[in-house]
């Protein structure tokens, strides 16, 4: 199983996860809908997970894969809190457009 993973050079994993990470970053920076922004953050975290798993296999070191579990747990906790905040905002403003939230600008 590990040999199958290693038939692809490590560079390709790094390029793929960097690409996914960049898509996530651009999504956070340009999308207006808070839910889509949250999805882009999750994409960033999963790009990191992919890279950690690849490194872990290539370095024959388990720590990276254990870190992946921690990231998954934290991402779940973050999504729970974030969606809670979104529901609260939606109840008060009837919108998830982050550009409509400008009460604090001066």
């Amino acid at each position, binding site marked *: 199983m590990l040999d199958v993973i290693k038939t692809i050079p490590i560079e390709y994993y*790094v390029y793929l*996860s960097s690409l996914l*990470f960049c898509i*996530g*970053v651009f999504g*956070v920076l340009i999308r207006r809908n*808070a839910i889509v*922004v*949250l999805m882009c*953050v999750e994409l*960033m*975290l999963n*790009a*990191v997970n992919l*890279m*950690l798993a690849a*490194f872990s296999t290539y*370095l024959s*070191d388990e*720590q*990276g894969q*254990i*870190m992946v579990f*921690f*990231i998954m747990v*934290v991402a779940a*906790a*973050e999504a729970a*809190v*974030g969606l*809670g*905040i*979104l529901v*609260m*905002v939606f109840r*008060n*403003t009837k919108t998830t457009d*982050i550009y409509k*939230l400008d*009460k*604090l*600008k*001066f």
Partner: protein
Amino acid sequence: MTSLLVLFFTAVIALFAGLFKKRQWLQPLALAGTGVAFGIALVDINTSSAFNERYASMLQFDTYALAFTVVALLATALIFGLSRWGFRELSDTLGDNYALFLFSLCGALCMFSFTNMVMLFLGIEILSIPLYVLAGSRRDDLKSNEAALKYFLMGAFATGILLFGIALVYGSTASFDLHQIHAVITANGHSPNMLSAGILLILIGLSFKVSAVPFHMWAPDVYTGSPTMITAFMATVVKTAGFAAFYRLFSTAFTGAGDFWEVAVAMVAGLTLVLANTTAIFQVNFKRMMAYSSISHAGYLMLAILAAGQPGAGGALLYYTLVYSIATVCAFACFLLVSEQNLDETFTAFNGLSKKQPLIAATMAVAMLTLAGIPPTAGFFGKYFLFTVAFERYPWLVVLAVINAAVSIYYYFKVIIAMYFSPEENAYEVKIPWSIRLTLAAGLILIALLTLMPSSVYNLI
């Protein structure tokens, strides 16, 4: 380690006390929990216990970690001192609020003591996630909602960047352990591109957390929108935790990895100092001014990161964060009293305060002078220590910092001028509950002690 456990179980008890509607127990419980944790941390500073050593590959409560634990616990205890009055309007969520404060504090303790990047990441998340909830704890207030959403989105974004950096560092050093990373870096003698990119991404992620320019955009909005009690916590404990973790990581793992990150930190520090201080001049809202003031203090604290590993840098960081935290809590306490009874968050709320409440006005004046770093106060010694450790290698940055410290006097004095020299405009009464009197007295005594014996704190690390 024991302090961490005490805080955690206090938080769990607070949750249950809230569930069973024991409102009047909550403040004494939270204060007792922080007090016990504080005592344990103080006792542990001079002794090393086997219990602590057992977890040393993940969390090491050495003198550095315990000293910062004491800072965070003092700031939290002062905030809890205000909480009976500050949280008086909360009904069913009071227990949750105390518990979330304490859980967040547990995260701060992890950030003081980590020796492994997994614990750094978990500490930051344990600190941040309760704060996202607390920032939005006024559910019907649109400003609080907006603050929570902005804080959450920026915080999650920063976490992603930090994690990508950690993954890259792991890929090039094959370890999450700070000492092993340092060993690999010194053995290689140079840093490969992947490691450099990782260190820079970690730097960006942590700069978001400590709100340094250009990653500060969220801070003014979040500080203004959140309830004042939570803003006080963010400006003190979160800032202290962010910088303690920043310093621990860079002084333990990344010294010798090359000059590139020092150049980046120096750029961030310079930008932070100039932009934050010039923007703060134009603020009319006190909370927004304090947000920019907190960003500018991040600029001064960056000087300690630049001197990471040199003797005295850790002590300077410790002293500065301690003085800054206590002065900030005092300032927010006075502001809380004035703004909630006057329904005004701008500087005009302070007009003529010295005639109505000379004690509150005097406390506020001491806090402002300390934050500005006027010579006899503790704030001056804090800035002096930081400037001394950074002067040898970055003299231009220290000159810039001194100029900006002079600029900052202008906006801190706006409050003092409003209190002492502006005519009284509105005839409102300011009542001071006894719990706030006690808290402010404790804060003033601490500032006085720090002014009288700065070196005893500075020489601790």
